[in-house]
């Protein structure tokens, strides 16, 4: 399996990564090497083996339902580029 230029561009767009037109070739070659490794792994017979969702053989710890977090919005917003009336401001996202 190898990735086409279209697929590379699509993956980049989904990840919001800008790639220059000349970069696609080099990226495709490198990503295809990763996929080749995956192909090797796929050759292993995994019939009857339950897929793992996590590398650790432990399960989720749960926390009690208590509101414990204080209001720290001023501290958090001190590093935000733009703030108004307690809101974070971002470039307009609607038509």
């Amino acid at each position: 399996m190898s990735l086409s230029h279209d697929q590379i561009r699509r993956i980049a767009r989904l990840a919001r990564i800008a790639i220059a037109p000349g970069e696609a070739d080099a990226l495709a070659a490198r990503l295809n090497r990763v996929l080749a490794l995956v192909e090797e792994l796929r050759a292993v017979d995994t019939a009857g083996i339950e897929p793992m969702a996590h590398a650790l053989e432990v399960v989720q710890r749960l926390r009690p339902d208590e509101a414990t977090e204080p209001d720290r919005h001023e501290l958090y917003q001190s590093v935000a580029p733009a703030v108004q009336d307690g809101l974070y401001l971002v470039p307009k996202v609607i038509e």
Partner: protein
Amino acid sequence: MAWEVVVGIETHAQLATKSKMFSGASTAFGAAPNTQAAAVDIALPGVLPVANRAAIELAIRFGLAVKGAINRRSIFARKNYFYPDLPKGYQISQYESPIVRGGEIRFTLNDAERVVRLTRAHLEEDAGKSLHEDFHGMTGIDLNRAGTPLLEIVSEPELRGAKEAVAYARALHALVMWIGICDGNMQEGSFRCDANVSVKKTDEKGLGTRCEIKNLNSFRFMEQAIEFEAKRQVELLEDGGQVEQETRLYDPERGETRSMRTKEDAQDYRYFPDPDLLPLVVPEQLLSEILQGLPELPDVRRERFVREYALTVYDAGLLTASRAAADYFEALVKAAGVEPKLCANWQTGELSAVLNREEQDIATCPVSPQMLAGILRRISDGTISGKAAKQVFEVMWKLGGSADEIIERDGLRQVSDAGAIEKLVDEVLAANARLAADYRSGKEKAFNALVGQVMKASRGKANPVQAAEALRRKLG
């Protein structure tokens, strides 16, 4: 060949927890912007999510109530997309192994029982809120809602038409409140529905291409939106066109749906297991504890009301519309010790009319079941007429007090003294010899007119049954 409308509903029910799905920030509604957004919610680097036990228990509670299968081992996954009110760039959700698989919702539509199967219900976190107005061309972001626990409940596409879809959504809404997993407040966004709508010819086996309608924040809008969308699709197909799979937004002001995004730019969410969260394992012990804590469910209670109190399916349905209503009814029957049918008539009639008029909920009704029971006992033993009972009820609603106090104070007791009624009847017969003669010559109508005269002479206080008996005796 007729067209058939096929609907599947996806519902986001906000789980009734005090804190968020993965952080200890409060979920209280209406706080000042960003004051309830912790480091985990705003996705500061280096933070780790820890799942809320109550959210998981509430999801299981739902799964057991709808007779779904609880996945003993379920996995949190990342759903990847970019939007400013989603600070992490992904939403934590469940994909391959949701906490609840299958299940069913039972409801009645036009007195017939319907059962709709659920596909799944999974846990996820809510996103923040974007405010697009008044920020000098910028968008304002409030992350208070980010990370709020949601249960996404997905029905199979087997609802036929707008009415059935709405009946399902109402039943689901009543159920989540009944079992206490969601406050059901649609204005505050605690219960939100999207509808997947497609149309097909009745004899077609497969389903047509569907459109997903968003922004259905009331049952009325849901019905309007599905009806509009089905009509749009049928017209498109009849004109030789094709339905495109897309997301559409319902605009309640114009009463129409319009395209939001089509399949071409549809999202590719690239789900994968969240490495920050370990598999969620539900121990047997917890399952049985939650099962034991479940209340009697609405459909079971409805059937019991029909059986135990000899009510119609319709009345039983009204009385089990909410747990508060059903509790009120049973307290009323117990306190009154009169015919359950009389209790049902009063609760679904006078009480419900006044609750509507005063925009009040039965849970906060100023007339308690014990107070109303006092009125019903006096109707039942003939102390007051049905009409006077309504007067007592109005006074009780406004000023409180017991039925007996109000009846005495306002002189509403009906005249049941045989001697007094006989005297009234004699007077009426003397003054209405013509009517009496008419009745004797076979005109049944004249009898009712005579009863009316007796009632009038008593200023409405004569016991009508006794008055009629006395009249018949004297005329016979």
